[in-house]
Each structure stands twice: as C-alpha cells, then as structure tokens.
C-alpha cells in the first residue's frame, strides 16, 4: 500500500504500530498486507461472510467494513493473539479435538466470534451457539462440529476457572 495519508497508532495483539494509511484502506487489508498478519481472512468484503471478524476494542467486528484510519488509537486482537507460548488456548484446543474446522479459511472469524460469545455467555445452549456464530459462514463443516467445539470449549473454560 502506498504510504500516503495520515499517521495512525494502533495496538494489535499487544504490539503498537505507527503507520501511514490512505483513508480508504480497509482495516482487513491493513492487518494483512500492512502488518503481515495474514491470519485474518477476507471472504466477501461486504460484511456477510464474517471471515475477517476481529476484536476491535474488545468487541467482535468485521474488519472489511472498517477503514484502517478509524483504528487510530484502537486495540485490536486477531487470531494470532490466541495461542500463547506455542500452546493452543482452550477454544482452539476444542476446535482441534472436535474437528471444528476443515479448510480453515473461516476459522479465524469463527474463533474471534466464539471468543466473544463465550465471554458474554459462558454456558450457551446449542441454539445460542448457533445464533452466536450465524454471522460467520462456513462451507466445509456444516457447522455441527463447530457447535460441538464451542460447547466443549465452554465446559473446558468453566473447568479451568473452577480449578483456579
């Protein structure tokens, strides 16, 4: 991307970046091509597929519907933030054990969405899980094993919290 436009300061996954961005640059493109954080995927660029979902100031949003310039001062979390010290977190682990992904393209958006879902509702019903992830399209799994994964993650997180 051309380094024209305005300077922004943005914190992504705990690291601060200062970059110049053209106002029209989409946040998804900024994260991917500007910061080389390729984990966030772009699937439709009109806010329907949800693959580009990230946490923007703690809230799940479509990074294809936000301009990078709007992220000035924001704290962003992408899928790259989830695993710490080379270890999957409990949500990722549940997706791994329950085959909650196939091609993996929607997975970053699915994980970030599920993260918010479980934060707001730590023990969701199947129907609440389905409603919660309905904004992320998956063409491989038919969703069943994603729902299983999120349910398992809810149990695992509750278990880990109880153990603490």
């Amino acid at each position, binding site marked *: 991307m051309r380094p024209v436009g305005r300077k922004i300061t943005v914190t992504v996954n705990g690291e601060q970046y200062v970059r110049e961005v*053209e*106002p029209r640059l989409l946040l998804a493109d900024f994260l991917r091509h500007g910061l080389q954080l390729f984990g966030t995927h772009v699937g439709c660029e009109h806010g329907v597929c949800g693959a580009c979902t990230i946490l923007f100031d703690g809230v799940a949003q479509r990074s*294809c519907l*936000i301009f990078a*310039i709007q992220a000035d001062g924001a704290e962003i979390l992408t899928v790259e933030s989830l695993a710490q010290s080379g270890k999957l977190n409990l949500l990722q682990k549940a997706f791994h054990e329950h085959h909650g992904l196939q091609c993996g393209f929607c997975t970053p958006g699915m994980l970030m969405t599920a993260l918010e879902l479980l934060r707001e509702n730590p023990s969701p019903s199947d129907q609440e899980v389905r409603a919660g992830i*309905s*904004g992320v399209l998956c063409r491989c799994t038919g969703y069943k094993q994603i729902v299983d994964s999120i349910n398992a993650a809810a149990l695992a997180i509750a278990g880990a919290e109880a153990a603490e």
Partner: protein
Amino acid sequence: MKPAPFEYFVPTSVEEAVELLARHGDDAKVLAGGQSLVPMMNFRLAQPAVLIDINRIVELGYIREGDSSIAIGAMTRQRVVETSPMVRDKCAILSEALANVGHQAIRNRGTMGGTLAHGDPAAEVATVLLTLGGSVTVAGPQGKRELSPEELLAGPYAAGISSDELIVEINFPILAANETHGFLEMSRRHGDFALAGVAAVLRMGEGNICERARVALCGVAPTPVRATEVENQLTGKRLDASTIQAAAELASRAVDCEDEYHASREYRTHLCQVYVRRTIQLALERWGNN
C-alpha cells in the same frame, strides 16, 4: 472490491460535523457504524467524495431514561441498546426488534442513528420508532430540529433528513403498563433483510379491549409504513381470533412493493397479513400472561 478514494474528516463534536456537512454538501456522506455504507462503497455503488466519520463524537453515545421516553444518542451501538437491561425493561419491543438486525458483529458496530439515516425499507429500528411514535433530533446549519418518524421516512432512504443534517438523538417512548407489544419478521435466512416484518404496540383496557393500536410494517414498501387501517380496525375491539383476523386482512392495504427474486409482491402482501395476525396474537398472549 475496494472503495474509491475519498477525503476523510473526523470531527469530534456535533458542531464540527455539521459545519463539515455544510461545507461539503451533497458530496459528503456521514460515516457512522458503516455497516450499510461501507459495503456499498466496497462495491463502488457508493462513491462519496468526502467521508465525515462521526465515530469520535463521544457525546453521541448514551442511553438516558426519561419520564416517558428513552433518549438514545445517535452513535450508540445497536448491540449496546439491545442488551441494555433498562431498554429491555422499559421498551422491550426495541430490544426484540434489534435482535433481528443482521448478526451480532454487525450490531456491535452498527449505530442507532446510522440505521435511521440509512432508512432501509426493511429497517427494524425505524419500524419500531414508527410504531411507538417517537422522534428523531437532527442537527443542521440552522440548529437542531425534531422530526416525527413519519417526517423522517417521508421517502425512501430517510428522505426527511437533508444532506446537511446529522441525526443526534432518537427518542423512544417507554411502553406503559397497559401496553403490550410484539415484533416478528420473516426472512430467508437468520439475519437477512425481512421479507416482511411487523411491529405492534397495543394499549389494552378491561376485557381485552384494544384502546389504541399502533402497527407498522417493514420490508413491504419503499419505507417502513404504518398500517393505519389495521390500527383503526383493532381500536375499540375486544381482541379475539376473529377481530384480529379481520384487522390482519387489512394489512395488505399498506403494502407497496415490487416483485423481486426472493419474494413476489403477492407473497409479501400475503405475509403481511399472516405476520400482522401473529404479531397481534403474540402481543395479546403477553397481555394475557401479565
């Protein structure tokens, strides 16, 4: 699918935003949540030369409970309103309707003012506002003015607001103790634009007599519309299956839509009738359960 270039302004006050709007006129578009505008920009169906981003006008983010209404700042995110316990308690129809707006990630960013300023024919929030008879405050070069929902929805895409004006606040009347409500819509998939949607608020008296009815439809006309003939038919009646059915049959008179791929005009018209009936029934059941 990348937006065309634009000049970008990020005012931090309403005055500053209004001044920018006055300066740039028709070339400018206001960027609130961007959940309708940015997709259109990515498709290049919208190519505003100037974008005035009001996300940093922090004064526009609030929910305030008044005596008879709830005032909501235009930049309040839809999800914040949807999950507000106060809104759920005082104006449940709004929370219920909001749950039908897209998906959570959309509502996380989409704003209350944005959906009204966009004025989509299927917009749930505008439909609720029309039903409740609330108001919208806009700021413009001549200061602030208040619009009724009917004035706001004078034509497609919120034609009641002029291009140098900005929505700053929306007022939703609080549902009274003798009022019951319902909101139902039908869409192809969860989260899609409604093929037809109905919001209803009924003021009830002794013996299930409907003292006043407010019913609005979405997705079936160029703007959300009141179903006044349905309302008139319900008013003063004891609500039961047959009076509700008789009223529902008048819903089609409010419909003005086109045949399109997902639904024929005839089908949409019919859905209105079915959904008006179901919504009124839902409201009545709730009344009965109270």
